[in-house]
């Protein structure tokens, strides 16, 4: 394997790696004909990210002669190669990634200004191909927005916030922080943002939906998207199906696949107490003409704007996926990770209805890191 990246793409590569570091602790590297795939997954397998850099991204791209070369290494080691991110484009002229198979080292060489040459020989581990199974095209809902819009939106949520709820109707999108039912509603701060469909570059909503996913992992993609200026696309279905965030241009494609809470455990999270049910009416149009007062008044009464949170979606084949908990557990306490974890398995394992052609060969080996301490939550 021998790839050369030059100019501004070195910084893009570095940013992609930094972005992946927000997901998991290890970087999976796989050079294929289509390009170089850089992937990462979190310890509970509820978030997966993949950057595919096409051969055109490189000045020279030569995939491994041994077609099935793939490896993984601690992502911190690779980040250390691209340490001074801010000055990368000023100092680095060329970056070369080569596989040194005799010594089992991945060599990353940075040709810098003033003739300085930085060579990093990183050790790696052989691994199975890491690939989450997902299909963007089959998602009922698709949104696309400029990264600035998304960054400005998530800015309103505290950095410590784990999960966020995204609800869509035919012409509106709501983003709320997700609060567990048992949290003290007096102390919890609720933040809700409403965006009109006009703010999006593309807005295609099949059915009114509400999904909850982890915000922390999303931020990783947003940082990358903002620096690249590329629009972010979101693909999602009903709760339980993963949400896929995607950034694409002619030479790269990034996909972040995040598990969502399933319907069964979907708690109500509104400003008012949980005994009140959300109103299914659409908010008054006054709100859309920026009349905050009427919106606030509407909030204080029991008439809450927002789509229903108990959609009676017809049973679909995908509901046959395994859920490791029953409805009694819906309101039970437990680390959110556990709920996400089982859902993601559901989306990873191909169901006969969805992807009949998918073979089992490219399945991620879930038990591969038996010595990894972080694997405690996988079932």
């Amino acid at each position, binding site marked *: 394997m021998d790839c050369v990246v030059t100019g501004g793409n070195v910084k893009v590569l570095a940013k992609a790696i930094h972005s992946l570091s927000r997901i998991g602790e290890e970087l999976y590297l796989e050079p294929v004909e289509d390009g170089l795939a850089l992937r990462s997954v979190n310890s509970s397998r509820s978030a997966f990210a993949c950057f595919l850099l096409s051969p055109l991204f490189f000045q020279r791209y030569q995939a491994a002669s041994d077609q099935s070369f793939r490896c993984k*290494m*601690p992502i*911190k*080691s690779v980040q*250390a*190669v691209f*340490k*001074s991110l801010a*000055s990368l484009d000023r*100092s680095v002229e060329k970056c070369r990634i080569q596989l040194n198979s005799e010594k089992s*080292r991945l060599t990353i060489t940075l040709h810098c200004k*003033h*003739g*300085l*040459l*930085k*060579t*990093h*020989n*990183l*050790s790696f581990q052989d691994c199975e191909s890491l690939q989450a199974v997902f299909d963007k095209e089959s998602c009922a809902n698709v949104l696309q927005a400029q990264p600035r819009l998304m960054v400005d939106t998530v800015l309103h949520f505290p950095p410590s916030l784990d999960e966020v709820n995204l609800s869509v109707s035919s012409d509106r999108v709501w983003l709320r922080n997700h609060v567990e039912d048992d949290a003290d509603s007096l102390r919890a701060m609720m933040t809700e943002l409403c965006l009109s469909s006009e703010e999006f570059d593309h807005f295609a909503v099949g059915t009114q939906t509400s999904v909850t996913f982890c915000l922390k992992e999303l931020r990783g993609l947003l940082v990358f998207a903002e620096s690249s200026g590329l629009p972010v696309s979101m693909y999602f279905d009903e709760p339980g199906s993963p949400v896929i965030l995607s950034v694409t241009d002619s030479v790269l494609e990034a996909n972040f696949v995040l598990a969502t809470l399933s319907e069964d455990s979907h708690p109500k999270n509104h400003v008012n107490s949980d005994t009140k049910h959300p109103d299914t009416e659409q908010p008054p149009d006054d709100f859309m003409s920026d009349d905050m007062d009427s919106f606030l008044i509407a909030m204080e009464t029991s008439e809450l704007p927002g789509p229903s949170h108990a959609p009676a979606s017809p049973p679909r084949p995908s509901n046959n996926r395994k859920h490791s908990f029953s409805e009694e557990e819906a309101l039970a306490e437990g680390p959110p990770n556990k709920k996400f974890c089982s859902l993601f398995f559901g989306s990873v394992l191909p169901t006969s209805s969805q992807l009949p052609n998918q073979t089992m060969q490219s399945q991620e080996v879930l038990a591969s890191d038996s010595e990894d301490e972080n694997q405690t939550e996988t079932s």
Partner: protein
Amino acid sequence: MPLSTQSQADIDQYILIASLDNARNLSNILKAISFRDHAIFSATQNGLKVTVEDSKCLQANAFIQADIFQEYIIKEDTVGFQVNLTVLLDCLTIFGGSTVPGVCTALRMCYNGYGYPLTLFLEEGGVVTVCKINTQEPEEPIDFDFCSTNVTNKVILQSDSLKEAFSELDMTSEVLQITMSPSHPYFRLSTFGNSGNAHYDYPKDSDMMELFQCTKIQTNRYKMSLLKPSTKALALSCKVSVRTDSRGFLSLQYLVRNDDGQICFVEYYCCPDEEVEEE
């Protein structure tokens, strides 16, 4: 200025008086060698030399020439004492570290001689502070016996390029290996850490390389923990000279410009790590 209101009798008893309009011209350079608590001060007609050592393997010296001082009076050939450098630095920066332009701390450093404390008169904005720091019997600094006739390889680099390399060094590596050679790789810094090894190569024709005089290929390893403090001196400097002698001892000399643009020197001497088996 309040400092000059000392009586002539007071001044007569001192065997060393050194004054600066800007105490930072002393404190900044001392910070570059402050990796240990104790420092050996050695004053001569030429100026002040401050030495700090670590485990008999590393020695750092800061040189502040007599002409840097606004006033420099020495009544003996050499004056030597040892003080707690941390305490001294705390006193020199007693008025806080503010860098408001035009406002600086003035210093008069006085020493009566053996057994007496080191007296510091510090003034800023009309406020005077007097500090007396106990002195100790100065230890004999190690003589690394590093003389220029024994130097096998020498390079002078602009500090900027080395600063970047040092800030990126893999700290999980126990050693820093320095290779100097008349042929490729010319000047190489290597680390051997948990994730693998890394090499930083500076070619001899790089525009950051001001001088390149290497006679034979030499590779030496030095403990990272010993060299780490030198990054403070590197940060202050604009040029650095790297020399190794036939025994593999390392000499790093840093050219530092103070606030007033005057030149001072800091040097580090380091013993090679004994466990070098391979080249």
